[in-house]
């Protein structure tokens, strides 16, 4: 998983809820290797899980598709990117139930960058600062 200086990983799994636990295991291990403390690891796992869940729920129809997750360590933090190549879906409604997942992601991340949904799918990049 390491490149000698900074940790990184990249994996593609089916966009299926049965793989969410595996995603959490992978992200948790990666965050720990980057030196995150227990609370930060929990935040990273929570955010990555929500992003992956959104792909499972919204990216593809019955045919399914790939869920890609990348992680890489930066100088003062770590980045997690979740992406798909599904077709655009309706934006989640705001309010009590709709949009809760993205709201939670924004609360635990130091920065969030979303591209899409578009012609080539959606990409969500999450930044987590780590104390030096």
């Amino acid at each position: 998983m390491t490149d000698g200086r900074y940790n990184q990983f990249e994996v593609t799994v089916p966009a299926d809820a049965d793989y969410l636990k595996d995603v959490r295991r992978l992200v948790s291990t990666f965050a720990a290797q980057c030196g995150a403390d227990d609370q930060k690891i929990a935040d990273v796992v929570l955010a990555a899980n929500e992003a992956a869940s959104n792909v499972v729920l919204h990216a593809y129809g019955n045919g399914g598709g790939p869920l890609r997750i990348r992680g890489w360590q930066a100088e003062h933090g770590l980045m997690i990117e979740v992406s798909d190549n599904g077709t655009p879906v309706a934006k989640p409604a705001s309010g009590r139930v709709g949009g809760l997942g993205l709201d939670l992601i924004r609360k635990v991340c130091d920065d969030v960058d979303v591209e899409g949904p578009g012609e080539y799918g959606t990409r969500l990049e999450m930044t987590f600062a780590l104390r030096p």
Partner: protein
Amino acid sequence: MSVPAGQLEIGRVEDVAVVRLLGEHDLASTAALRASLLRLIEEDFGVVVDCTETEFMDVAVLRILLEAEDVLRGRGRRLAVLLRTRCPVGRFFEIGGRRAVAGGCE
């Protein structure tokens, strides 16, 4: 590589059902949770969701709890969520879930 989904244990004390969420619960386990909660509500139980041994919970599960709470409110009953002072899902409720599930959290 596959890991089993979280488990449900359901106990009944008079007219209150206690639903214990054991292990990790996410989108994969919501169908079973939803079916169990709606069945208990239909049988006119009050519902306590015991998260003291829940190792992980996400928004998909929270949506199910909110739905159950709405149905219970319509019947004049409440949903309570049981947490320990320090438990794995405490952080989740602290960030966003606690205020979304009215009452019952400690």
